[in-house]
């Protein structure tokens, strides 16, 4: 169980990137380091730790604490080793009588203004101030406590005006100003790493204090996004996780991967016994490079929430209360029902939904269950409702659905186009890395109907262009960008001739050059001014390394796949593929949505994106699995629901997905589920879908199992078990038990065996094994003989499909149109503190930031309708109606309203329609014609829904 304890050495300052090397002598030892390295880091490289307080290798050197002084032969004084770069041939001394005395004097001053409550301090044993006092041999503090910051009252009982009370407002960490040594590490972390600038130093000299925002602010009311970077950086107990205050310091740590978004941050799960003390970002994690967001860092309490179901449950009918049973009874009940359905309605009447929240190994087993045991291809996954158009669009143009870059690539980008994505909320750690690059001078073009934070609400960042298009007009905008690039001759002819099909390019160039695609012609349709669009196109084409990042605002449209194709066209036109700093980068939603797609979760393709129609591919699987595989594509989620309503689809095993809340047209989903004879939900909680389930398999959290997740950059990261599954079994074991009950001869004893099977069957995973992952930390597929260490960048010397394919992208307006009854367009999105359907984050303290979904509406539209800020409004579409509170803001344009879908009481998907992407049936979440009117409270539907949900969640007391 105690897998890994990797000491995280702190080298004091960041690594220098220079290729030129410099040799110097430190304490008599020769050391050779890159030019620009600090003396402190050079010393650390040979194992000499110069005492320090304000330096840490995640932040630029600051030189304020004066503890890291060194002497250099032939130079005057005692320079700070953190801010002094190495020079050839210099001789440095880090320890001598003079330095010792100076350091002790500095420490003595620090300690004279610090409470000596070490034994009862939460940072006891994990405090750099304590360590340094020991390191410099501080034995005595001669100064009497005169004016100071840590005593509440002086000896005469008068209040100390310099003392500030502890700020406990943030639910996850405390700020105790009395313990602060004003090293500025927190302020610098907030600026340099997170890029929020919520912290500052107020006052000067002895009056200097760390402050969240303005003087009247608290941690909670300031701009702070609770990413935890400041807490991580704090060398003392000043900024401290409340979990450490409550529990104590951890005694071991295990490297694992966050289970929230597609960034896939590496974390250390720091443990005491089997209690999780805290999650800290792992600095060698290649996706996050030591950073985190509020969800991964702090919002893990759901795993031990009281709502979590720990016993299997069954019921005959969805109107009955649940009955707790043993695992064996649950398996018998579920398998008998499924076998009965198959006997009566045939093998095509059942299917599975794999989870993008579970591991690769688990997704693989679930799709194998349907292909090898049920013997059909009825498998789908939540990527259906998010990035399926990416798979189609990039597959057609480049030859693979994969994102082209790693996240490090953004460090070399000069111009970023961000389309339909809101990274500061949806992909916060990537957003921080992006913001860092933007602060260094890279330019940003935002294409989004809503003024997201990156447009003008992020410190020291302002988008060069914000194309606030009308929802549903993505294709027109992207084609107009191509029009400008082609007609103004801004394309990269050499790249196109070399890497793409020249004839196809000419057809494409002719198509986009048509005046009807010009920004002047499309501006009336898209709402984007022609001159702004032209400026954006010129900037992207000629501004240096151009990278496109996009999200669900691209895919979740009737023309989602067409927009993805259009994006790929733009990258090929400008030669922005195949090197660092460029590329086409889909920002994936779920932690393992990339992996679940790789693992063959789609009904038409086996693991590794190979179509089931290919005989050779099926044969490989058939010979290993010993079964015949169906050569016809199976049902997608919407098809399953349609078929269920018709009466031909009767049984579903749904692992870790809540289709009733996350899929469009809730009423249709509910009708489909209600029509089935056996719905098995495998989840941590009785989610909304479970309202219609007959069997409930309790799930295990990511802390309780081994496996791998694959993030948006195709990086396969290990998930490591840090505690035993609370309900007895890891999810892969539950699927295996169910398969065995259905007659399968499966005997996996560890997920590594499942990965070995995947590697055996899937060329792009051929080189992947748990041993390899231990060795390299993580690996980006393809990983095989040709690329034994994985593939950070795709399409370097040629596209996967050979020549890049330009495809014309005709704009076809969605049939979801506004009219007199529904004059506004609703678009949906996310916010930072909540995650997707909120099943996890709603069960954490994150609700302090977002307790309910609200409807953003422009003041003009609100005024017309008599809607006031904070008032309940009814939101109605052709599909249904719901109610929620209004928030009046000009972040949305007139005619557009916006909400999130994190809370089941809102049920925003009652409103969304069943229009979907032409190629993949990815639902059109981002465009719904609606009307908004003042209301008194919940609609009839919401009340009925709540009553039904409550009734369906009854659990009989154990006998």
């Amino acid at each position, binding site marked *: 169980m105690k897998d890994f304890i990797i000491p995280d050495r702190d080298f004091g300052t960041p690594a220098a990137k220079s290729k030129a090397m410099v040799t110097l002598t430190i304490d008599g030892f020769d050391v050779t380091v890159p030019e620009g390295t600090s003396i402190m880091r050079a010393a650390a490289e040979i194992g000499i730790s110069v005492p320090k307080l304000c330096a840490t290798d995640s932040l630029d050197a600051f030189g304020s604490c004066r503890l890291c002084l060194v002497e250099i032969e032939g130079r005057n004084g005692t320079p700070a080793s953190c801010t002094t770069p190495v020079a050839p041939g210099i001789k440095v001394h880090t320890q001598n009588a003079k330095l010792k005395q100076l350091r002790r004097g500095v420490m003595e001053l620090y300690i004279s203004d610090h409470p000596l409550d070490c034994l009862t301090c939460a940072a006891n044993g994990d405090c750099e101030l304590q360590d340094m006092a020991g390191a410099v041999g501080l034995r005595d503090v001669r100064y009497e406590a005169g004016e100071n910051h840590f005593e509440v009252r002086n000896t005469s009982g008068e209040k100390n005006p310099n003392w500030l009370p502890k700020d406990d407002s943030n639910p996850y960490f405390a700020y105790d100003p009395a313990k602060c040594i004003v090293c500025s590490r927190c302020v610098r972390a907030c600026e340099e790493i997170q890029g929020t600038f919520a912290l500052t130093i107020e006052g000067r000299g002895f009056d200097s204090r760390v402050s969240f925002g303005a003087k009247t602010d608290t941690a909670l009311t300031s701009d702070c996004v609770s990413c935890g970077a400041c807490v991580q950086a704090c060398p003392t107990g000043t900024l401290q996780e409340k979990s450490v205050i409550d529990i104590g310091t951890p005694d071991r740590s295990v490297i694992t991967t966050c289970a929230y978004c597609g960034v896939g941050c590496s974390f250390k799960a720091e443990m005491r016994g089997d209690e999780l003390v805290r999650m800290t970002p792992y600095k060698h994690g290649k996706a996050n490079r030591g950073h985190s967001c509020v969800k991964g860092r702090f919002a893990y309490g759901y795993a031990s929430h009281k709502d979590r179901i720990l016993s299997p449950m069954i019921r005959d009918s969805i109107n009955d209360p649940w009955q707790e049973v043993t695992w064996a009874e649950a398996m018998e009940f579920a398998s008998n029902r499924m076998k009965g359905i198959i006997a009566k309605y045939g093998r*095509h009447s059942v299917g599975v939904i794999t989870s993008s929240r579970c591991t690769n190994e688990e997704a693989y087993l679930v799709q194998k269950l349907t292909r090898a045991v049920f013997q059909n*291809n009825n498998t789908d996954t939540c990527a259906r409702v998010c990035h399926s158009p990416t798979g189609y669009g990039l597959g057609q143009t480049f030859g693979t659905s994969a994102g082209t870059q790693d996240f490090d690539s953004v460090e070399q980008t000069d111009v970023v186009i961000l389309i339909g994505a809101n990274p500061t909320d949806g992909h916060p750690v990537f957003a921080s890395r992006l913001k860092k690059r933007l602060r260094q001078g890279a330019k940003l073009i935002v294409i989004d109907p809503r003024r997201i934070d990156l447009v003008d609400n992020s410190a020291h960042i302002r988008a060069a262009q914000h194309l606030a298009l009308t929802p549903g007009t993505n294709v027109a905008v992207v084609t107009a960008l191509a029009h400008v690039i082609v007609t103004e001759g801004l394309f990269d002819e050499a790249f196109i001739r070399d890497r793409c099909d020249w004839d196809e390019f000419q*057809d494409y160039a002719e*198509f986009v050059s048509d005046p009807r695609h010009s920004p002047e012609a499309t501006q009336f349709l898209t709402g984007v001014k022609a001159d702004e669009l032209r400026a954006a196109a010129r900037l992207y084409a000629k501004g240096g390394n151009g990278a496109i990042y996009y999200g669900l605002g691209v895919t979740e449209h*009737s*023309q989602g*796949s*067409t927009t993805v194709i259009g994006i790929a066209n733009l990258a090929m036109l400008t030669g922005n593929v195949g090197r660092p700093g460029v590329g086409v980068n889909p920002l994936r939603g779920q932690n393992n949505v990339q992996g679940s797609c790789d693992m063959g979760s789609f*009904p*038409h393709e086996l693991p590794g994106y190979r*179509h089931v*129609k290919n005989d050779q591919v099926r044969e490989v699987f058939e010979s290993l699995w010993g079964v015949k595989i169906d050569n*016809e*594509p*199976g*049902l*997608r989620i919407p*098809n399953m629901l*349609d*078929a269920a309503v*018709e009466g*031909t689809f009767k049984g579903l095993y749904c692992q870790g997905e809540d289709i009733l809340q996350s899929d469009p047209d809730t009423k249709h989903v509910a009708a489909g589920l209600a029509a089935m004879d056996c719905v098995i939900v495998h989840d941590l909680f009785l989610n909304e879908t479970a309202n219609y389930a007959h069997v409930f398999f309790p799930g295990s959290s990511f802390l309780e199992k081994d496996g791998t997740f694959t993030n948006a950059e195709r990086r396969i990261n290990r998930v490591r078990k840090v505690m035993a599954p609370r309900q007895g079994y890891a999810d892969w074991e539950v699927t295996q038990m169910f398969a065995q009950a259905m007659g399968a001869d499966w005997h996996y004893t560890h997920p590594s065996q499942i990965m070995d099977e995947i590697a055996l069957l899937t060329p792009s995973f051929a080189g992947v094994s748990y041993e390899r992952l231990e060795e390299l930390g993580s690996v980006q597929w393809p990983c095989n003989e040709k690329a034994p260490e994985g593939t950070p960048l795709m399409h370097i010397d040629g596209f996967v499909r050979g020549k890049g394919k330009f495809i*014309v*992208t*005709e704009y*076809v307006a969605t049939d979801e149109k506004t009219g007199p009854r529904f004059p506004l367009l609703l678009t949906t999105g996310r916010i930072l503190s909540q995650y997707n359907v909120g099943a996890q984050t709603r069960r954490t303290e994150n609700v302090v930031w977002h307790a309910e979904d609200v409807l953003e509406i422009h003041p003009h539209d609100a005024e017309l309708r008599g809607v006031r800020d904070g008032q309940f409004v009814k939101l109605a579409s052709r599909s249904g109606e719901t109610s929620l509170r209004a928030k009046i803001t000009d972040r949305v344009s007139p005619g557009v309203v916006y909400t999130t879908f994190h809370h089941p009481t809102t049920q925003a998907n009652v409103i969304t329609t069943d229009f979907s992407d*032409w*190629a*993949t*049936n990815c639902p059109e979440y981002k465009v719904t014609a609606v009307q908004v009117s003042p209301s008194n409270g919940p609609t009839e539907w919401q009340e009925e829904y709540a009553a039904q949900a409550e009734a369906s969640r009854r659990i009989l007391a154990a006998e």
Partner: protein
Amino acid sequence: MSADAHEKLIYMANQISKFFESKPHAEGVAGIAAHINDFWEPRMRRYLFEVVDAGGAGLRPLVLEATCSIRRPTPEHA
């Protein structure tokens, strides 16, 4: 089979058609057929053929042209 389901299938086929109508004619026809063969499960194709066999009312011309290249589902799958 309800009229609703047929209507949905007609709508989806026409949506695919609209993408391929901007391609050269032969490529467009082949594209529609390949797309439906690759992504539509047999049940959906059976409904499509029910519509086609009843005269194809409501289907865009390019879809009708493509149907000669669309696989009819085998009885086992239908």
